[in-house]
């Protein structure tokens, strides 16, 4: 058997046997161990069948012995086809790689990190005004220039940097810290009570102490004076400093209507899809208007690319429109309200919470949750003297 380079040994060929008795070739071939497939009668004197290409030489020899004419109709060499198709695929693959390479020269995704008080929208607007936007050609950008422009537009940014990796831009932002209050040591001041309480402990470092433990003080009452009168009668002023620990009591209410309108999802959901190429959006649905009056729209966006490395200029958008009905029911969660009250108390108290308790009440269709707390904290505040 002559082997041809690059030919699949299991390739089949379609042949036709023509003669007075073509069945004799089929019988002789099978007797010699040649496997035949799809034997069919073409006409009275012709049989068509498929045989392995590697056995064609043997078949030709047998055909001569059986006085049958053998004609090869078609080679079904899949490997030859595969090799041919591969040459067609190569330019496609090359074009795809070229497109990928060219697309990596443009920014298709901008990630903002580090922003806590500033919104991403505000930073994105500033970046857009400074030249960094989705679809921009990043080799033409200067990171220092963008940084300077953005920090001028958004004064709350203390520091920022722009890192570009492939088609992704990562903007790291550090917000400006609030400057702490710096007081002038030379300015005279009194210590006054910031809150109403029962004095527990007084510790005045400078100034004239005016309260003692066990005394009740109201908010605004002076605790230590910055005016000192010497033995000789001369008056001098100092900046009163110290701490006055006092027992304080808090009462914070949270009010919520007992019955309110709630959303009840009906279960009907409509799905819509869209593609965003760069900045251009292609809707994959006909009607863009909201068909249902009362519904929520949930939008999921998926970016094509390798997470953390590069992003393609194609985003897939999935919109879910979920309809709901109105119903009346209990619209509050007492646990959430209690947690909120607790958080408010923690923000107000500058010391320790000794005891706290919640009480509930209902009146006129309202639910009232009250937090009462007994705390110990420093109530002294500095108030500068006038004149």
């Amino acid at each position, binding site marked *: 058997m002559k082997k041809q380079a690059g030919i699949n040994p299991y390739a089949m060929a379609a042949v036709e046997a023509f003669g007075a008795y073509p069945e004799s070739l089929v019988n002789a071939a099978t007797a010699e161990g040649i496997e035949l497939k799809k*034997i*069919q009668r073409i006409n009275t004197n012709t049989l068509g069948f498929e045989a392995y290409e590697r056995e064609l030489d043997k078949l030709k020899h047998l055909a001569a012995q059986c006085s049958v004419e053998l004609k090869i109709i078609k080679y079904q060499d899949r490997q030859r086809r595969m090799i041919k198709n591969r040459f067609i695929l190569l330019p496609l693959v090359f074009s795809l790689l070229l497109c990928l390479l060219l697309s990596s020269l443009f920014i298709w995704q901008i990630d903002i990190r580090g922003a806590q008080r500033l919104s991403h929208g505000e930073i994105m607007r500033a970046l857009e005004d400074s030249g960094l936007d989705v679809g921009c050609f990043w080799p033409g950008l200067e990171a220092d220039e963008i940084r300077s422009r953005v920090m001028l537009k958004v004064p709350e940014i203390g520091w920022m940097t722009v890192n570009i990796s492939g088609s992704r831009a990562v903007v790291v932002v550090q917000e400006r810290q609030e400057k702490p209050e710096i007081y002038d040591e030379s300015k005279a001041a009194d210590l006054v009570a910031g809150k109403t309480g029962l004095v527990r402990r007084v510790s005045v470092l400078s100034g004239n102490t005016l309260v003692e433990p066990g005394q009740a003080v109201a908010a605004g009452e002076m605790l230590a004076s910055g005016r000192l009168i010497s033995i000789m009668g001369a008056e001098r002023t100092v900046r009163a400093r110290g701490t006055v620990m006092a027992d304080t009591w808090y009462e914070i209410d949270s009010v919520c209507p007992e019955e309110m309108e709630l959303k009840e999802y009906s279960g009907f959901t409509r799905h819509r899809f869209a593609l965003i190429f760069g900045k251009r959006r292609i809707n994959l649905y006909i009607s863009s208007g909201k068909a249902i009056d009362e519904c929520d729209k949930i939008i999921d966006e998926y970016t094509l690319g390798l997470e953390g490395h590069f992003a393609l200029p194609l985003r897939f958008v999935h919109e879910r429109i979920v309809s709901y009905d109105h119903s009346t029911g209990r619209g509050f969660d007492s646990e959430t309200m209690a947690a909120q009250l607790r958080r408010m108390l923690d923000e107000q108290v500058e010391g320790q919470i000794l005891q706290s308790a919640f009480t509930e009440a209902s009146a006129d269709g309202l639910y009232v949750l009250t937090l009462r707390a007994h705390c110990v904290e420093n109530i002294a505040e500095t108030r500068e003297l006038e004149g």
Partner: protein
Amino acid sequence: MKPIKGLPLELAEKMELPRELLPGTAGISIIGGRQACVEGHRGILEYSEERIVLALRKGRIIINGSSLKIEAMNAGELLLAGRIESVEWQ
């Protein structure tokens, strides 16, 4: 157990020997009237879409039907497909 050549089929049946011990014994399996597998044939005697005649070691087998075609064939087995109406042993 080695196959036993030359043992008459009738004797083998009386001794209740398994068929695998008798090589060359012709057999036909028909599946759903649409496919048939013939074992132990000795070649095609006649082939048309309505009638296929196969030679056996002793005798021949005739398969009648319509749209008959041989899907695959080797030295001892043959697979045919089509609408099988009748099978005759001669």
